[in-house]
């Protein structure tokens, strides 16, 4: 909770300072844009967080999103409802493959998902054959999903928040979710208390893939243009958001809400830098520096807490 509060404060500071420079930043349109920009990455952080909590990582999410987006857009010509289902199924299948290899095959996730990152992207290219699908090829009703809103809240934001809420509830309040933390915190002990580690890890990859599939469908709705390169390089953004959001890269702690706030913070900083006229060329450098600062801060807080606990438990004062 403290962690989430910290990000919220950082977010508030960024927004406040930017709004001072440019009031449009806090206009209805401005806020809508901030939320919409963060949506896809925030959605992906949901799956990624679950994976990282178990001391694994999924580098293939960008490729899964791309593949699902293209297949979805392509299937629209056949049947719109089918298209959305197909997009989700593609994501789930990709996740399934990762899950089988990591969870059941017991192969390090970094290597597996680095491999499937290429494999899924390759499939995407093969499917697309150099084509691009444009807004004109997609039904307006579907595109409205990406840009429309109800009561001022964009659908995309609503969907993201819903997924987030479900995942937060699962991780926070259901056995199978709590067990993910146990797995990441101490894998050997998790086996000893009878947690089906392989199956749980398998499921997190399946979820990560499915969520990336959903994000692919939504990416089509939001951007209306799809080619085989959609989502390239997204994995590093997602992991950055997860890390900034306070999820320990070696597992065991962190929340999806924190990670999603991390995504919102990073994308808001990106927008803010633009609005306050910081040259485009500085933006990436600043993002990188912030990321490192966030990790370092996290670490120093963790060390201090550990030192305090150690002193407490011993009851020794210097």
């Amino acid at each position, binding site marked *: 909770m403290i962690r989430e509060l910290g990000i919220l404060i950082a977010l508030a500071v960024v927004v406040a300072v930017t709004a001072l420079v440019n009031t449009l930043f806090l206009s209805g349109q401005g806020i809508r844009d901030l939320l919409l920009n963060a949506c896809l990455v925030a959605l992906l952080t949901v799956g990624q967080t679950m994976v990282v909590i178990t001391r694994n990582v999924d580098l293939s999410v960008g490729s899964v999103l791309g593949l699902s987006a293209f297949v979805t857009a392509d299937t629209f010509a056949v049947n719109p409802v089918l298209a959305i289902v197909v997009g989700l199924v593609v994501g789930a299948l990709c996740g399934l493959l990762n899950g089988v290899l990591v969870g059941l095959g017991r192969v390090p996730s970094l290597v597996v998902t680095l491999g499937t990152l290429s494999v899924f992207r390759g499939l995407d290219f093969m499917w697309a054959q150099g084509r691009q699908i444009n807004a004109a090829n997609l039904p307006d009703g579907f595109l409205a999903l990406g840009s429309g809103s109800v009561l001022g809240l964009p659908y995309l934001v609503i969907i993201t928040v819903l997924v987030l809420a479900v995942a937060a509830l699962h991780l926070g309040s259901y056995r199978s979710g*709590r067990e993910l933390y146990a797995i990441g915190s101490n894998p050997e002990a998790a086996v000893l208390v009878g947690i089906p580690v392989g199956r749980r890890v398998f499921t997190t990859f399946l979820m990560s893939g499915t969520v990336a599939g959903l994000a692919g469908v939504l990416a089509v709705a939001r951007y209306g243009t799809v080619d085989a390169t959609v989502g390239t390089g997204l994995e590093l953004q997602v992991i950055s958001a997860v890390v900034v959001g306070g999820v320990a890269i070696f597992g*065991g702690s962190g929340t999806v809400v924190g990670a999603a706030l991390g995504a919102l913070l990073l994308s808001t900083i990106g927008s803010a830098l633009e609005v306050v006229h910081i040259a485009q060329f500085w933006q990436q450098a600043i993002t990188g520096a912030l990321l490192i600062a966030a990790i370092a801060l996290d670490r120093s807080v963790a060390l201090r807490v550990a030192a305090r606990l150690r002193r407490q438990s011993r009851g*020794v004062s210097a």
Partner: protein
Amino acid sequence: MRIDLAEVSKSFGAVQALREVSLTLVPGRAHALLGENGAGKSTLIKVLAGVHRPDAGRLLLDGAPARFASPADAKAAGVAVIYQEPTLFGDLSVAENVAMGRHPTRRGGMVDTAAMREQAERLFERLGVDIDPRRPARGLSIADQQLVEIAKALSSDARVIVMDEPTAALSGAEVARLFGVVGALREHGAAVLFVSHRIDEVFELCQDATVLRDGGFVWSGPLDEQTPDGVVRLMVGRELAALFPKQDVVAGETVLSVRRLTREGVFTDVTFAVRAGEIVALAGLVGAGRSEIARAVFGVDRADAGEVLLRGKRIRAGSPGAAMAAGIGFVPEDRRQQGLVLAASIERNTALASLNRLSRFGFIRRSAERALARDWAVRLRLTFARLSDPVGVLSGGNQQKVVLAKWLARQPQVLIVDEPTRGIDVGAKAEVHRLLSELAAQGVAILMISSELPEVLGMADRVLVVREGRLVAEFGRAEADEERVVLAATGVAAG
């Protein structure tokens, strides 16, 4: 529930940890599993818990054949286990550690956090301990970790409770409470398996016992047929005296002196000296801080205050390199984690601390390395197939010899040995003792940490007792006896 293990065998590579061992647990009775370090007690327990699958042998639940393919199976069958090494989830709260795998839930399957906390509080109350269920498990003291483990096992209302050295880190009052709780469970029909190196505890709690030696079955039966001395004889398999061939040497000048060494929250104001040819033992309960002192002396950990001197010259703090250069060697307590690179060969492990003298312009001289490893393998009577085999395939005793070889190859003036005979068989143990004794005779100053009192009493010229991070007593060889040391270590009278 009655559990029978029949003729169970299990080996790890070259180590035969269990050889056709049988054991029966009966409802309403507590059964002790006895044996020296490395006898195979923990391995047997892990078979019972579904962690290890035995190479041969049968498991019967109430007479019916069964198989535990995983800890989940054993748990489902009603077996609760407290493992020797704590298995806590540092990131999670204490309450959740207790509940993990068996969270109380509300309707709809949601975890009931309040119930979880209450459950932990109830268990802690029963055990008479004061741990905040909301704090994270990370940073708990060894004793508190052990208590959380006990609460974890008790929470499941198991029909079979297996405890691997649960009392090793506990104070007298805590032990008494635990025994009260276990007694109550037993009276309600639970079967109990109990491991401890404290023989008096065993006689206090248990009705039956099984004794293992070197992985083999030695004896099983009701405890009222046995005396404590008889049990020890069964465990050791020979007269105790033969084990500790400490030669008498005249101690020389002071080699190592430690002055007011302090590491906050761990140990405070530790001052002592070791002279050439002398073996000084640090005794104390598990978690008293002995290993931490040794680590700070060697520089693996940085002390917050105080200094370490070798022949009067101050050693740079926090640098194992500096300590080694000054002539200190350190055989750490955790052989597999700290002492060896298990995947690397015998040769490379032996050479690991001597790389500088084995190299020219930074390039390793392979022949010199091989010669060094061969030389020490012979001198320590190492049993091995090839020097290029990974150390991981050796038996525990032989692994320990490789660690010793690694340090002896540097010809240290001071050798710190932390639990030098933990988990090695009796023969190897005797050899390690002989070696240490010889080294002392050659004028090496030895600082020994051991949790086995007989070893401490048999080997040491002086015994320093550590309690809660402070040196609380010092005994010469003549005045040191079991009762005095235990009294100093626990702060209460022994037995």
